[in-house]
């Protein structure tokens, strides 16, 4: 064994680290976990988009597996994912919307034009709820289980792949769980 072998330890440690970082580059950073995963959904109570007199809150999620989709009319990527949400709804997935920093008439018009996949929409005019929920930007989609615990967060527009391989299997699993 050459004399310098024992001094190679720092180099080897660094190479292991570099391999990890290399792997990190190929992992989609969008799947980086939110600190809210496996935590109870932060409490909120917001006026509904359709009717400011009615309120949407956490209690609406109780007892069923739901998706909460954060969207806005000014967001191009939301327009892109919208048909997939409509399709998810047709497959029986219960979706709530969080209309984020938007205008009521614009949002209502959007739903009339492109279809309404949402059971109801919470209207978060100034993004207050977005802060509590750790929303980085639109669109984002949370999967919440029967007990109101956040189980998954998808950042960015939902893709066909994400639906087939992540969201639908997860929803199925959570529905079967107690």
């Amino acid at each position, binding site marked *: 064994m050459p*004399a*310098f*072998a024992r*001094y*190679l330890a*720092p*180099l080897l440690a*660094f*190479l292991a*680290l*570099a391999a*990890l*970082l*290399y*792997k*990190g*580059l*190929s*992992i989609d*950073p969008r*799947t*980086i*976990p*939110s*600190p809210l*995963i496996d935590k109870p959904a932060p409490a909120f109570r917001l006026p509904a988009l359709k009717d400011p007199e009615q309120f949407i809150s956490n209690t609406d999620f109780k007892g069923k597996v739901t998706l909460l989709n954060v969207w806005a009319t000014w967001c191009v990527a939301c327009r892109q994912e919208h048909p997939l949400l409509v399709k998810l709804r047709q497959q029986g997935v219960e979706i709530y919307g969080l209309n984020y920093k938007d205008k009521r008439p614009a949002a209502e018009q959007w739903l009339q034009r492109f279809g309404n996949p949402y059971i109801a929409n919470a209207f978060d005019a*100034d*993004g*207050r709820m977005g802060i509590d929920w750790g929303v*980085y930007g639109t669109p984002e989609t949370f999967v919440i289980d029967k007990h109101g615990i956040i189980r998954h967060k998808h950042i960015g527009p939902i893709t066909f792949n994400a639906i087939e391989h992540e969201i639908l299997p997860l929803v199925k699993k959570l529905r079967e769980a107690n």
Partner: protein
Amino acid sequence: MIPELGHFALILALCLAIVQSVFPLVGSLNRTPSWVAMARPLAYGQFVFLAIAFAALVYAFLSDDFSVLYVAQNGNTELPTIYKVSAVWGAHEGSLLLWVFILSAWMIAVAAFTRSLPEVMVARVLSVMGMISIGFLSFLLFTSNPFARIFPAPLQGGELNPLLQDFGLAVHPPMLYMGYVGMSVAFSFAIAALIGGKLDTAWARWSRPWTLVAWMFLSIGIVLGSWWAYYELGWGGWWFWDPVENASFMPWLAGTALVHSLAVTEKRGAFKRWTVLLALLAFSLSLMGTFLVRSGVLTSVHAFASDPARGMFILAFLMIVIGGSLFLYALRAPGISRGGGFGILSRETLLLGNNLLLIVITSLVLLGTLAPLLYDAFDWGKISVGFPWFNSMFVTFTPLMILLMGAAPLTRWKHQDGGELLRQLRLALLISVVAGVIVALPFAAGTWSAGLAVGLSMWLLTTLLTSAWRRLRHRGGIRAIIADFASRGGRSYYGMWFAHLGVAVFVIGVTFVTQFDVEKDVRMSPAQEIVVNGYRFRFDGVSPHEGPNYLAQRGTVHVSRNGREVAVLHPEKRTYKVQTRPMTEAGIDASLFRDIYVSLGEPLDGGDWALRLYYKPMVRWIWLGGLLMAFGGLLAASDPRYRLRMLAKLSGKAAPADPLTAGGQA
């Protein structure tokens, strides 16, 4: 035209960097004095071209030249002038330009202040710095050109992120980069010494002031960042263990270990391998921080535009710089001689102990930062390592470190008699235990952790006083201190003194603010009063207010105590015109022993508002401690012995015949 000049200057700087990284180094190896002599002029040249490039970008911002993409994204005509300038480093491209510009500033500092060093050493150091410069300049030019144009130019710019429109954040990046990049000097000295195969006490003495100054800047940068987060983010926290914060904290920890280890190497010739490894580590961690922040592998509140191509570039660069330097270390380490031996109880042992603790903490911070990535890479599921984990780690190791820190200055080099040490320490020990127990008693603070923290801080304070008393006992009086300041090694000592005092102050601040802060989320109607911790808050409503580039809702809160007015605070809720992002501007009444902190929440019906009221005891001590540490670093770096040698050399005029062999370099 001006942006093209800037771009062209960048290209020229890259050309000079390439020449600088080759010729002086090769010249130092094959003994070609003319090649060695190229090092300094090349460094000056690089600085000049980078200064031109930097000035060109500043000009583009000041003149609102939105045909430059970067300016169009981050500039705006309505931005106040100071933020037009700070917008230069407000996003990825410009902050990298600042990075290389500062690197070139460090290079000319090395070129100017190393006249007393052997030419060969200086040539190698500057060559290594040139290599680092190549990496960053090509990164800038090939992946992140700040001078790229867009056509057609927009009429108005996208504006600097409102979060960054703040004085603290205008000066935070330059300070932090001075620290990050400054670590490259210690790194380059270490590489130069490894190339020469000669690591001696002279090498430690040359690196020490550079390391101290870089460490000082890093400390100030971190303090500024923490202070900014406290008043700007609106929820009163001062440290979040965010990946970007960790990225600055890790080089600081390694740098702290390095500063101490260098002292041992300089004084006793011991720990040479360890010291050189730390010098490599401190800068490597700075580079790694850059990677983590810019590549997008980790998410953070500090959103830099992330791009996998950039990540790949930096990773390749890390492989070359860190991998290459560690390989060189493995080659040379067996040849490094052992230094002076030391007993089991000696200052060396205590310093080594603290060095190890610092490195353990650094590794744990690294682990915590990378854990989400690690779990993802191995499909172990998803985790995010949060506050509690980092805090408990810190609480475990810091007390140990402080115990050693208190004893070390009173311990002799080489060998210390245990009984004698105990006799010196017993008064300090007694005072700190008593102080800790009193604080822990129910009628005082009443918690054990507060008692422990106060005890530890008292321990630091009393041991420092003991050590100062012993030092000055024979001389006595203010005059002795002044004379001591002028003496060789005097300021190093007082530097240590203030830096350690800073740690005591910091510990007190952290403990009190985490244990005794009071936070209240309230709904207030105009003229309503609420009492928090003896302070009466009266809410006097909210009125509109117009800033240069934002509209604000400005609240008025009168704070009084025992019927006397303490402060009138104006927390604001701002909406910036361009990015329309709502921002909270907290109203803070600061004082040495407590902060009163009010932030404005949301408007509720009937003129009511949601408000957050905080009482934060001793929060200022956190930053005061940090600044004391930085001051200590500055004091130690200004020690006359670093300059005396230089002056002696200059006045001696013993010009060596062959500059290559001066200083005994092989």
